[in-house]
């Protein structure tokens, strides 16, 4: 948008509110798309592809246009930035919840989202509206009203799919870390074992078991394909297991299949 004349930048928002003309809304979104891209880039490398973040930001901006009140004295850029930032953080938090202890769940303050996450956890998939209504002891209409009012979104999945298509449940991931790293003696032994690994293997173990990142993100960080990372991880764990048999608990079956001793990684 350019022009020498004095143009009220808020007029287009007023026109949109008055007419509901989606072309006006889309013009606004297009004019501010760079903001969506900027916020998407800000949160890249945190386990969600930047294209997905960009889509999240775009949808958040569309909602921001719908909600923006030009008479409130705040610029749209500020308002949209807050909306996108919040939405991206929520998306990332949901993603993080998929692989970390569910501390974030304690912070949930909206009953719908809280219950949705509980159900997602329990069912191993996102609940349907009817299931949510049942769990909330509410009518389907009331749930839909909550959706309409809050634009609630689902939590990310709480399972992770490995390269071979096998599904790893969040509880399994968490129990592995609790058993393996929960005891002081074991920690010392693990530290000794890790010292024997080369730098990259140590980094893979750190990212997988201490940072609890998914294989896809680890692969991205160290610059290898996910299938290669999967083989590499198995090789490292088999190697560790062979070094110290007493610590079987550290190596979960999620990462090393029984009898997988001959797993090898490409050099």
């Amino acid at each position, binding site marked *: 948008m350019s022009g020498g004349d004095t143009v009220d930048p808020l007029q287009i928002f007023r026109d949109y509110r008055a*007419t*509901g*003309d*989606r*072309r006006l*809304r*889309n*013009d606004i*979104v*297009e004019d501010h*798309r760079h903001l969506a891209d900027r916020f998407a880039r800000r949160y890249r490398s945190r386990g969600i592809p930047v294209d997905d973040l960009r*889509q999240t930001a*775009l*949808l958040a901006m*569309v909602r921001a246009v719908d909600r923006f009140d030009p008479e409130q004295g705040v610029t749209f850029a500020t308002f949209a930035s807050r909306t996108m930032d919040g939405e991206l953080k929520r998306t990332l938090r949901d993603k993080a919840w998929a692989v970390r202890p569910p501390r974030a769940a304690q912070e949930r303050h909206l009953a719908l989202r809280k219950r*949705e996450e509980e159900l997602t956890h329990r069912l191993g*998939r*996102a*609940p*349907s*509206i*009817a299931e*949510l*209504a049942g769990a909330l002891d509410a009518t*389907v*209409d009331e*749930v*839909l009203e909550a*959706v*309409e009012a809050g*634009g*609630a*979104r*689902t939590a990310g999945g709480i399972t992770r799919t490995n390269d071979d298509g096998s*599904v790893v449940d969040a509880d399994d991931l968490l129990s592995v870390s609790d058993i393996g790293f929960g005891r002081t003696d074991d920690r010392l032994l693990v530290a000794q074992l890790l010292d024997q690994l080369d730098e990259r293997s140590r980094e893979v173990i750190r990212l997988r078991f201490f940072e609890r990142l998914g294989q896809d993100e680890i692969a991205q960080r160290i610059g290898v394909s996910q299938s290669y990372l999967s083989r590499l991880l198995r090789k490292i764990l088999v190697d560790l297991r062979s070094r110290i048999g007493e610590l079987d608990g550290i190596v979960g079956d999620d990462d090393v299949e029984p009898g997988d001793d001959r797993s090898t990684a490409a050099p």
Partner: protein
Amino acid sequence: MRTDHRHAELRLPADPRLLRVARVAVASLAAELPFTLQDIEDLRIAVDELAAAAIDGCGPDSTLDLRFEVDGQELVVTGRVEGAGEPPPMHPVAIDLLGLVAAGHEIGIDGDDRVFRFTKRPPTTGS
């Protein structure tokens, strides 16, 4: 609005301000199927965008006819604006949004009518 077990029909003036009614209708019907909140959010956006495209450039006397059909486990949404002809080129943002939430949608003409169609299936549950 007429409803039965299989479908609902909605007739609206071609006024973008009234598309909220279409959003509520599709969300209500989708709630009868095992859709998630995210699916329903996407459905609302998809219907809003397609319906907005269908009435784009139409005068206030035009009418948008929407049909929401539950076919097994999928929801089929169709729209028609009689005599509206070819839809104008879509805004790039609308194209992006529909690409995100309404993969496989169709919008075009049927005789002199402007029509669209979109099918949404619930995610496979269990495995």
